């Protein structure tokens, strides 16, 4: 055995003896530290499926896709149910700005229907 190896062996033995000689106080502290660490591992294990980075990605993609789909749906152009030409904004403005209240039009709705049909029919 060379001098270096012999010295190395002596060092190992001395250090191993010092490891064995760790006192009760330190052992007790180490035991507590280990329990705390294991508690942390258990907590981590309970929530692990949500913490694995690989699982965040599909979840994130799905959430983004859902938000985009919602945004597209909300912002889509609404198909008109009736021809816009019939609802002239000018007529609406005239009606609103006239001194007659809107209730007048409601009260005489039958008259206006008749007058409208007469005018379009051209009969008198």
């Amino acid at each position, binding site marked *: 055995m060379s001098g*270096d190896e012999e010295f190395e062996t002596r060092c190992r033995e*001395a250090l*191993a003896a010092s490891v064995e000689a760790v*006192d009760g106080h330190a*052992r007790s502290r*180490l035991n507590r530290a280990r329990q705390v660490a*294991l508690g942390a591992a258990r907590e981590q294990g309970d929530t692990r499926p949500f913490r694995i980075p690989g699982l965040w990605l599909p979840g994130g993609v799905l959430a983004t896709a859902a938000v985009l789909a919602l945004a597209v749906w909300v912002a889509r152009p609404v198909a008109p149910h009736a021809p816009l030409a019939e609802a002239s904004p000018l007529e609406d403005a005239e009606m609103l700005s006239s001194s007659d209240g809107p209730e007048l039009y409601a009260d005489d709705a039958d008259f206006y229907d008749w007058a409208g049909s007469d005018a379009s029919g051209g009969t008198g």
Partner: protein
Amino acid sequence: MTASVTLPRVGCFEADRPARALAREEHLDSTRELEAFLKDVERRALRIAEIALRNTEDALDVVQESMIQLARSYGARPSSEWKPLFYRILQNRIRDWQRRRRTRSRVFAWWTGGIAEDDEAPDAIESTATSDAGPDARLEHSEAMASLEAALAQLPGRQQQAFLLRTIEGLDVAATAAAMGCSEGSVKTHYFRALQTLRARLGEHWP
């Protein structure tokens, strides 16, 4: 009708149960494995930290922090990876602790208006001899251990790390390199220099 609706649900639940039980069992196994690992390394880790920090209480804190970080961050990794990871964490914690201690002593020296403490470690022989809970005080061969610790404390940080990881923990060159975050060639160089320095300081007839 109700039974025909209920039964398949119970069937599904029953089918899930073994999978969940299996997952729980695997987790318990993993926790037991981690406990066995920590129990195995804790005292050697304490000695490494104690020699590097020359204070038992600080060393205990550092070991506890390292255990918690390993459990939290790497508990799910294969157990074969734990040892180099644990010692990597431990070395980083020791370095952080030493840095904080230096900063504290500088601030203290500035605040008290005294002469700033030397950045170098305090006299190793003196501090080893006054260590309140050092194992050398509890051992009959305290003289030999004290002089070895003193010599180790005077080594440059990387040499000390390489030497302690290889002699106390018994890591091979590759695992030491992984724990230290350097190449295997560097580990060999640090270890060889540490050995030469210690031999020169302690003398041929030590212990």
